[in-house]
């Protein structure tokens, strides 16, 4: 059998993809349903001469990956709800200091310890606004293992391109389900390497001065350029500054570098949207049930389509508006109380067209759940 074809959990697909993307350092703390990521990392990384560490908690895990990234190594951590809460301070640090890294959150039911082994998609807004202060964030997701692979590589690529932490929101179903995965051949998916400065030793290097294209070349700790990194507002040398002009420029830069590149960051898939009168919008494992419904109703002649979001933040407002322009009904399918529904309502004209099909009880949302909502809309009763 072909060595590149595997039958694995989504968590393992994520590990394989991270290694493909050039991951060299992993730090983490076990938590269901993300633990298999740490376990596979512990096996795989030392075999490649790379490093794994189990830290004392999630706070230290995210701090450790930031430290490792600064020495020039691609780094990541993985966690779930409670651990993701603990990581918010470190995540804000990585945003402010512009340190590339990847944080995987395999979502489970919350709040608090919640439902450790049940699926949920209720951390979508925490991913967006868990960090204090104005900021932008990139959060990606996936609905099958091949996509987990691609989106994990995309996460590392976005982290390096925009010098920012990237969140990968998986969910319990995707993390634990076993499915076929074909590992793409080398170079089948482009990998973005660390952009290092070409400024020579002895010449003033500005770690926080964007190039013309907006990117900020880095210099590894330990090499010839010595500079300061801080979570305080800082100038182009990385030195603390409270100069209003400098602070304003920094905050604008941190948000604009993401806001102005929504097109490069956003990924989506579409099914039967051309003539769809009812558009389903979904992501992650929920999108599997949504697609099932669309195909089933299509077979019966109903004009349904699916817009599957593979990136949630920055939210692709323009894309959603365009794809929903001619829809009579828009059904957002997600396992929370309407987190993406809220964004969709903001995106489309006539937001009263938007309804939510959800489950919040720790049970995976089924095609029947969605069909019930569909029947309600169609006035058929349940």
């Amino acid at each position, binding site marked *: 059998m072909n060595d590149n074809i595997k039958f694995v959990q989504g968590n393992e697909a994520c590990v394989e993809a991270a290694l493909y993307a050039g991951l*060299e*350092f992993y*730090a983490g703390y076990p938590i269901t349903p993300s633990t298999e990521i740490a376990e596979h990392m512990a*096996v795989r990384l*030392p*075999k490649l*001469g790379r*490093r794994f*560490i189990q*830290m*004392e*908690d999630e*706070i*230290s*895990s995210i*701090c*450790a*990956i*930031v*430290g*490792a*990234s*600064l*020495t*020039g*190594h691609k*780094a990541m951590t993985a966690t779930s709800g409670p651990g993701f809460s603990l990581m918010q*301070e*470190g995540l804000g*640090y990585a945003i402010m200091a512009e340190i590339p890294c990847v944080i995987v959150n395999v979502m489970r039911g919350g709040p608090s310890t919640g439902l450790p082994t049940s699926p949920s998609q209720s951390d979508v807004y925490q991913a967006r606004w868990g960090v204090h202060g104005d900021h932008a964030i990139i959060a990606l997701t996936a609905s099958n293992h091949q996509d987990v692979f691609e989106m994990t590589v995309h996460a590392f690529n976005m982290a390096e391109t925009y010098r920012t932490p990237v969140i990968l929101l998986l969910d319990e179903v995707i993390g634990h389900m076993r499915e076929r995965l074909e590992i793409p051949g080398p170079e089948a998916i482009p990998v973005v390497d660390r952009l290092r400065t070409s400024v020579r030793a002895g010449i003033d290097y500005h770690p926080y001065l964007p190039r013309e294209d907006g990117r900020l070349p880095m210099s*590894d*700790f*330990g*090499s*010839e350029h*010595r*500079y*300061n*990194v*801080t*979570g*305080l507002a800082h100038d182009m040398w990385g*030195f*603390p500054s409270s100069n209003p002009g400098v602070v304003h420029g920094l905050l604008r830069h941190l948000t604009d570098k993401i806001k102005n590149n929504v097109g490069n960051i956003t990924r989506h898939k579409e099914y039967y949207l051309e003539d769809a009168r009812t558009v389903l919008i979904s992501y992650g494992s929920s999108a599997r049930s949504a697609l099932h419904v669309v195909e089933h109703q299509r077979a019966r002649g109903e004009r349904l389509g699916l817009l599957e979001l593979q990136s949630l933040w920055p939210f692709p407002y323009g894309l959603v508006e365009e794809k929903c322009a001619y829809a009579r009904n828009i059904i957002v399918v997600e396992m929370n109380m309407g987190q993406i529904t809220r964004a969709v309502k903001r995106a489309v004209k006539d937001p009263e067209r938007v309804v939510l099909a959800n489950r919040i009880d720790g049970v995976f949302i089924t095609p029947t759940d969605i069909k019930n909502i569909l029947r309600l809309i169609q006035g058929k009763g349940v």
Partner: protein
Amino acid sequence: MAVKDYIRERFFPHMWCPGCGHGIVLNSLLRGVEQLGMSKNEIVMVSGIGCSSRISGYVDFHSLHTLHGRALAFATGVKMSKPELNVIVPMGDGDALAIGGNHFIHAARRNIAMTAIVMNNRIYGMTGGQYSPLSGYGTAATTAPYANIDHDFDVVQLAKAAGASFVARTTTFHARQMTDILKSAIVHDGFSVVEILTQCPTYFGRKNKMGGAAEMMEWFRDNTTPIGSKAKQENPDLIERGIFVQEEKQEYCAEYENVIKRATGGRS
């Protein structure tokens, strides 16, 4: 290289109050680094948040000014991903042992090679004089207006019990000893802890009627003694200074190389 060559002059004057002990620590540390003849490129200084942690901005090393209490966690990522770097982690007493207490004991337990400097002024200087886990019973602070009922940690005992392979204590009055101890700590291959009693005249001094910086340093002179001295036998209340632990023990990054060997079947 002269000591001033290790400083980022561009970022002076520093933010510390007149008489603050943190400047003495900076000076003694740079003397030590200079005497060891270390290159600036091989040193990474990782600090947290506090008056003490601002030290990292003033030195011309690779410097990482992080989050309150988390310096050792960031430092662990730096060291493990590039073990050839020399990592120095100055921390405040609250930084190292309140919010950062968990990271402190776990870094010590791993025996990962880095120099943890606890700049112990027995107070939260940066936030304006609240009590810390090292203030001690009966002291005054803005959050202990009726005298503190919290007991303090003994940093030396704590570090020893947690597994640090180098543990020492000194004060800002003993600047020469500080340099010698820091040199030994920096070259030590394992987790080193150096507690430095330092003065915050602005808050601890004022609140506790200790006088100005000079009087506070005289207090360090009069209330400390070399480890195992005769004076200590006569007056057990004296605080001992010197190197308490200096032992050879497998270092964490070196140990991880063995993990790699086992994982690769010795092929790496």
